[in-house]
C-alpha cells in the first residue's frame, strides 16, 4: 500500500470540509476521486500534500505517518502534487519552473530528468527559455506535469488536470497520465470529468459532502447507475 488515509476530519471556520474520508492508493495503481464541486476532493489532496493539516485522522505513506509533516517534507517523502489551475510560476522560464520542481534534489540526475521531460513534451524543450505565462493552457498543463515529475515522486497527485482544456489537449494529457502509469508511477487524481477519470482509474472513490459515499474498481463505478445519474449525466 503506498498511501493510506484514514478518517480525515477538517473544518474551515465551522464548516466541515472533510467528514471522515478514508481512502487507499495501492502501489503502481491509479486512483480517481470524483464528486461535485465543493465535495472536498481538492481538500483531500491538500491534506495529503501537507498544505492543510487535518484536525483528526491519519495519513500514512508506506506505513509512515505523514499527516503532521509540512509540505516540503511530504514532497521529500515522495508525494508530488500537481495543483488545480496548474499554478505555474508565470514570470519564470520553462527551465526555471522545472528546476523548481526538482528543488529538493541534490543528486546529479536532474539534468537527465529534465531531458526526459523535454522528450515527453517536445514543445517544452523548444521553448525552454520562454516565460511560462506566455503558454497556452495545454502547454501549461504539460509544464505542470513535467514540473511535478522533476521531483521523481513515488506518488503523483493530479488536481483537475484537464480543466479548461480543448478536447484534443484533454486527450493528450490523459494519454500522458496513462503513459506515466504504465511506467510504474502511482497516481491519485481528482477529476470533474468523471468518465475520463474512471476510465483511467483502477479504483475510484465518490466523495460527497466530505464523505466517501462509494468506492470500487473504476469500471464498476462506471457501470453503477447512481454514479451515471449523478456524475455522468
Amino acid at each position, binding site marked *: 500500500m503506498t498511501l493510506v488515509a484514514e478518517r480525515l476530519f477538517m473544518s474551515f471556520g465551522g464548516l466541515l470540509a472533510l467528514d471522515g474520508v478514508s481512502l487507499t492508493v495501492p502501489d503502481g495503481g491509479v486512483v480517481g476521486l470524483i464528486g461535485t464541486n465543493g465535495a472536498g476532493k481538492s481538500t483531500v489532496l491538500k491534506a495529503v500534500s501537507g498544505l492543510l493539516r487535518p*484536525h483528526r485522522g491519519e495519513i500514512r505513506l508506506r506505513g509512515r505517518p505523514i499527516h503532521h509533516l509540512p509540505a516540503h517534507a511530504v514532497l521529500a517523502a515522495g508525494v508530488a502534487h500537481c495543483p488545480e489551475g496548474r499554478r505555474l510560476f508565470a514570470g519564470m522560464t520553462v527551465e526555471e519552473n522545472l528546476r523548481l520542481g526538482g528543488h529538493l534534489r541534490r543528486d546529479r540526475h536532474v539534468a537527465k530528468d529534465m531531458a526526459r521531460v523535454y522528450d515527453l513534451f517536445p514543445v517544452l524543450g523548444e521553448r525552454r527559455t520562454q516565460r511560462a505565462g506566455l503558454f497556452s493552457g495545454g502547454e501549461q498543463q504539460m509544464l505542470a506535469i513535467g514540473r511535478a515529475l522533476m521531483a521523481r515522486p513515488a506518488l503523483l497527485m493530479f488536481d483537475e488536470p484537464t480543466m479548461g482544456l480543448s478536447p484534443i489537449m484533454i486527450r493528450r494529457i490523459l494519454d500522458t497520465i496513462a503513459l506515466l502509469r504504465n511506467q510504474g508511477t502511482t497516481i491519485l487524481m481528482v477529476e470533474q470529468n468523471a468518465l475520463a477519470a474512471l476510465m483511467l482509474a483502477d479504483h475510484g472513490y465518490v466523495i460527497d459532502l466530505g464523505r466517501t459515499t462509494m468506492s470500487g474498481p473504476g469500471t464498476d463505478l462506471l457501470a453503477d447507475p447512481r454514479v451515471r445519474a449523478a456524475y455522468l449525466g
Partner: protein
Amino acid sequence: MTSSFVRDRPVTEAPSRREPRPAWRSAPGAALVLLGALSPWASAVIPGGAYPGLATLQFFDAPYLVTGFRLHLLLLGLAALLPRASRAAGAGAAVIALVHIAFLAALGVLSFGGPVTLAGGALLIWLGRREPAPEWKLPSRALAWPILVAAFAALLWAVSAMLTAGGQSRATNPHGGAEFLSFLGFAVGLFGILSAYGVLSWLSALAERHRAFSLTVLLACAMLLPLTEAGTGYWMTVASTIGIYAATAIGLNIVVGLAGLLDLGYVAFLGIGAFTAANLAHVVSFPVAALAGAVVAGLLGVVVGAPTLRVRGDYLAIVTLAFGEIFFRAAQNDIGGLTGGANSIPGIPPITLFGQGFDQPVGGLPAGFLYYALTVLLVAGTMAVLANLKHSRTGRAWLAIREDEDVARAMGVRTGRAKILAFLVGATLAGLAGAVFAHKLGTVGYESFDFSESVTLLAAVILGGMGTVPGALVGASLLFVLPEKLREFSDYRLMLFGLALILIMRFRPKGLVSS
C-alpha cells in the same frame, strides 16, 4: 491585491484530541503558589543596610500576614484549584513572581518566595486544562439589569484600582512600579479566569443585548470615576488625554477596522482640528471652533482619501504616511502663518461654559473634571457613531470592501464613494477631538503630530481589536496608561512598552477585544 502569504498557511485549530485533564493535576502547582505566597521573599540580608531599612517594601514587613500582593497570590493559588481557572491563575502568579524577583534583583537581593511561586505558576500553565469556555444562558431582563450594573461597577473599580495601583509619586513610594506591575499580573490572572469560565463573553453578550442600557450605565460609571481614588487632578488630566486619543482612535477604527484602509498618517487630522480650533480660539466660541475643526479636517480627509480611488492596500498606507509627513513638515514650517511653527500656538484659552472655566475645579471635584466629562461624552459620541455605522448599509459596504474590494464592487457597492466616506467620517471625528485637544492643552505645536503618534493610534486600534466598538477605547487606554504607569521604571519604560506590544500581539494577535 494579493492576499498575504502568511494567510495561506493552514488555518486549522490545534488538534483537540487530548483528553480533558483531571482537576487534581493543578493541585501541586496551586500548592506551590500558596507556599510561595506565604514564604518570606528575601533570603539574604540587604546589602548596605540593616533589614528594617527596607521596611517600606510592604511585602517584607509582615511575611506571614495577608497584605497586598500576598493576598493576590493567595487568591490566585486558591482559584487555581478550580479546574478551568488553573492556567490563567498560574499565568497571573508567574507574572507577579517575575516582577518581584526582578525588583529584588535590582536591589541586589535574592528572592526566596519568588522562584517557588514562579515554579508553581509554570506548573499550572503547563498542566492546566485548555478547552473552550462554556457558554451560559442569558438571564431575563429583570436579572440582566442588576447584573450589568454590578459588572460595570466592578469595571469602574478595576479601572480606578489600576490607575492608582502603586501610588502617584515615585519619590515617596520607590517600589510603586513593582506594585503596579504586580497588580497587573493579578488583573491578568483574574481576567483569564473570568474568560476561561466564559463569564466575559457572557457579559459582553448580555451587554450587546441590552445595548442602550449598557451604554447608559457605562457612561454613568465613567462619570463616577472622579469619586474613586483616581479622582485627582493628575488622573483627570491623564484620563482626558486618553479620552481624546481614544476618540481619535475610534475614528481611525472606522477607516482601518471597518473599511480596511490602512492609514499611517492619521494623526494629521487631529492636528488639523487642533490648529483650526487654535486659530479660531480667540475669535469664536468653542462649539463653533470645534465644528470648524471637524469640518476642515473632514474636507482634508476627502483630499487624502481621493487617492484611494487609484491606490490600494499597503500602497495606500504609504500614501497616507506621505500625507502625514507633509502635514508635519508644513506645520513645522508655520505654513501660511497658521501653525506657529517652532513657537507653536500658545495661550489658547480653556473652554468656558456659563462662566465656568473647564480647567477650574467645580464643587468638590478635582480640577480637570470638566475636561474629563467632556472627553467622556466625546468618546461616547464617537462610539455611538461607530456602532451605528457598523450596522448600517454603509458599514456593510465597508466590511465588504475590507474583505474583498473586487467582490464588493461586483456586488454593486460603490466602492470609491464608500472609501472616501470612510476617510471623511474618520477625519471629522479626529478633527473634533483635535479641537478639544487644543483647548485642553492650551498650546498646540507640530511636535504633537509626528509619525510615531500615528503609529501609536494605529497600535491602539489593533491592540484593542479592529472593528470592535470598545476595542479602540481599550487600546488607547492601554497605550497611554501603560507608559504613564511605567514612569516608575524611567530608563526601562519604553523598553517595557515595546516588549508589551510584542507580547500582546504574540498572544492575542486579534487584539484584546476581538469580535
